[in-house]
């Protein structure tokens, strides 16, 4: 039933050749690879900005670049990493590839819309790149007014338009996933038999659909105010700059859950497979995903504690922010319980999963510190916050993404990556990451402000450690870039189910045929049922 030979069968990769067959494809698997190429480009571009930033910060005086250039560097690093890398990353690559496969469907509900959403992302990316090449933008990725509307002399409108456009890519992807998951599951695949990755993508899609329009209209208002000299956020006209922040963070806080929820879904899959145990507390994990999506919309004011938001509102947001940590913690406990008495193996995806669990816990805990008003007033706009969100975004999401890429690479390409090099990179990433960002917690607590390129002598030792760590981290990211590409030609041929995992995606060939399944599967068992795999093993 599960065939091991691949080369003789027509896969989605070999079905058609030529540039047009890729650029005009409606196959969700090919679109996933188009996204993979795009976001990998943006990741390395954002990384270049990070490199220059860390080089500047090696010495206390602001001597490598001018202040305005430095402002542009961290702005572009943020804009590219958030909007052009992290937000699309897991949903648009792994999500696009896996959602139809995991639910036993032939494709997403709206394949043409799927292709359109890739082109929309590219259009937005081109806008941002054009703005960057013309001189960039220096407002911070947060575009606070009135600086961005009235005083900045950089390409605010163009970058804002770029973000507006990429937002639609995100909305269309989320919309596609919601309809697909609701209406196209295979016979027998009830909601509580779904893999937890699907639950997390579903929850993410809810956030994408309900949150992204607000950032879109916010950037539109900034562009309109700046372009037509209207005064919606202009204090001189009675406009309220804090209103901008409310609108901005209404999306941008849930956005961080768009970034981390799919990562959590990947971790659920990986932890289960490499401990040969079903995920402990499946229902809790599934409901937690949705809870995070909903609660994530109630806490945005915690970004505005020192922005002259009323103390009364700050109290409410602080209180709610403690709540949102609960479902995340529930997931961490459930993963730990899954590992307990499991038959654990240390393949590369599992190494990334361990990294995620540890680093996300630290990042999440420091989030609860920041939710406390008294503490936040002390460390807001310092490197403590920078460390907090990098622990979650890089130590969390990026690690999960790498883990997922490794885990599903055989399915996507029909090739295995080199395990030795992969394990080494995972270790290098983990060490480099902690060396980069842990000193930032300390120096932030001691008072090092964020977005400053000149700083007092006393912080230099932390910055040097951080930059050293960043160089190690860079190596850790470059090695997989090389061996993934290498594996496409020279990697070992992958069987249909190299990890002996459950899940419908493993019931078809590696790589899958264009229509995903020869026969529509019928599901009769719960998710993560490893006992049936033992029965089914052919010799």
């Amino acid at each position: 039933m599960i065939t091991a030979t691949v080369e003789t069968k027509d896969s989605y990769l070999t079905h058609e050749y030529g540039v047009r067959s890729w650029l005009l494809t409606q196959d969700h698997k090919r679109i996933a690879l188009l996204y993979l190429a795009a976001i990998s480009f943006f990741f390395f571009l954002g990384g270049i900005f990070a490199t220059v930033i860390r080089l500047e910060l090696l010495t206390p005086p602001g001597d490598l670049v001018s202040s305005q250039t430095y402002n542009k560097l961290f702005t572009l690093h943020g804009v590219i990493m958030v909007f052009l890398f992290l937000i699309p990353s897991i949903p648009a690559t792994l999500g696009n590839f896996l959602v139809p496969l995991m639910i036993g469907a032939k494709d997403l509900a709206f394949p043409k819309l799927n292709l359109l959403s890739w082109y929309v992302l590219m259009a937005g990316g081109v806008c941002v790149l054009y703005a960057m090449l013309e001189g960039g933008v220096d407002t911070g990725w947060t575009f606070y007014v009135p600086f961005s509307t009235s005083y900045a002399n950089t390409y605010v409108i163009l970058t804002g338009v770029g973000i507006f456009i990429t937002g639609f890519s995100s909305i269309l992807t989320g919309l596609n996933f919601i309809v697909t998951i609701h209406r196209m599951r295979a016979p027998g695949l009830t909601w509580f038999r779904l893999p937890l990755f699907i639950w997390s993508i579903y929850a993410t899609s809810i956030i994408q659909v309900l949150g992204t329009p607000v950032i879109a209209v916010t950037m539109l208002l900034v562009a309109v105010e700046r372009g037509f000299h209207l005064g919606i956020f202009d204090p001189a006209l009675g406009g309220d700059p804090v209103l901008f922040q409310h609108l901005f963070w209404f999306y941008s806080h849930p956005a961080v859950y768009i970034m981390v929820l799919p990562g959590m879904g990947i971790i659920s899959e990986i932890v289960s497979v490499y401990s040969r145990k079903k995920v402990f507390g499946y229902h809790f994990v599934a409901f937690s995903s949705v809870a995070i999506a909903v609660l994530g919309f109630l806490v945005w004011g915690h970004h505005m504690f020192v922005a002259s938001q009323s103390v009364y509102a700050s109290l409410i947001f602080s209180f709610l922010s403690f709540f949102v940590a609960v479902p995340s913690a529930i997931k961490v406990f459930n993963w730990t319980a899954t590992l307990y008495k499991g038959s654990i193996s240390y393949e590369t995806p599992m190494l990334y999963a361990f990294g995620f669990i540890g680093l996300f816990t630290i990042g999440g805990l420091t989030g609860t510190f920041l939710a406390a008003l008294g503490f936040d007033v002390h460390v807001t706009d310092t490197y403590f916050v920078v460390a907090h969100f990098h622990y979650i975004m890089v130590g969390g999401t990026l690690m999960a993404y790498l883990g997922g890429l490794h885990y599903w690479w055989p399915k996507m390409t029909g090739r295995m990556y080199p395990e030795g090099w992969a394990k080494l990179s995972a270790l290098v990433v983990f060490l480099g990451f902690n060396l980069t960002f842990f000193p930032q917690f300390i120096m932030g607590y001691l008072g090092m402000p964020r977005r400053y390129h000149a700083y007092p002598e006393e912080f230099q030792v932390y910055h040097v450690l951080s930059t050293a760590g960043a160089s190690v981290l860079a190596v850790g990211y470059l090695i997989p870039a090389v061996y993934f590409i290498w594996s496409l030609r020279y990697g070992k041929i992958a069987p249909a189910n190299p990890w002996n995992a459950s899940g419908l995606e493993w019931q078809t060939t590696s790589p899958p045929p264009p229509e995903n399944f020869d026969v529509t599967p019928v599901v009769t068992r719960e998710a993560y049922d490893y006992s049936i795999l033992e029965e089914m093993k052919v010799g």
Partner: protein
Amino acid sequence: MANHSLALRHQFDDVEQQKDASTLGMWLFLATEVLFFGGMFCCYTVYRSAYPAAFGQASNHLNLILGAVSTAILIISSFTMACAVNSAATGAKNALVAFLSLTILFAAAFLVIEMSEWRMLYQEGLMPGFNFTYKEIDPAHVQLFFCMYFSMTGLHASHVTIGIVILTVMAIRAWRGAFSPAYYTPIEISGLYWHFVDLVWIFLFPLYYLIARHLQG
């Protein structure tokens, strides 16, 4: 009957599932539009609660008759759109094309009225960014009112324009016989979009035109 018009896509099992998915997809899109306009409604709410007197003053500079007529015109266009959907469902091709054309006509009429209102406001010196010369009571907050007014009606007008394009495409396809009682989903979901455009105006009208009319002499 032309079977090509059923156009069952390969990812779906049957036409029912396809129609269901398309409708759900359009409703999700409309939910995003609620939040999209909603951001501006939020700005409006914050500012009106802060400056009620100025907003009342400013509102009385808008032409109530034109506003009310615009509202009626959009409601009529929603009615003709609903009748178009009914015609598609009952296979009345000529009626379908006629009702779609009427909807487009009323939509265009709405835009004409809107643009003439804008022109009048410009000439009265009430268009921020282009010609704002109001100097009477509380000019700063009156200007804020008009910033919001033009932003919101502008965004709405852009949606009306997109709607006209969509409906024109639908009318042409309908005239060429693309729809039948077995397949008229694009008409239905275009209708959903059009009704949404009407819904936004149903709120814009009282919020901008009816704040303090009793003060007007």
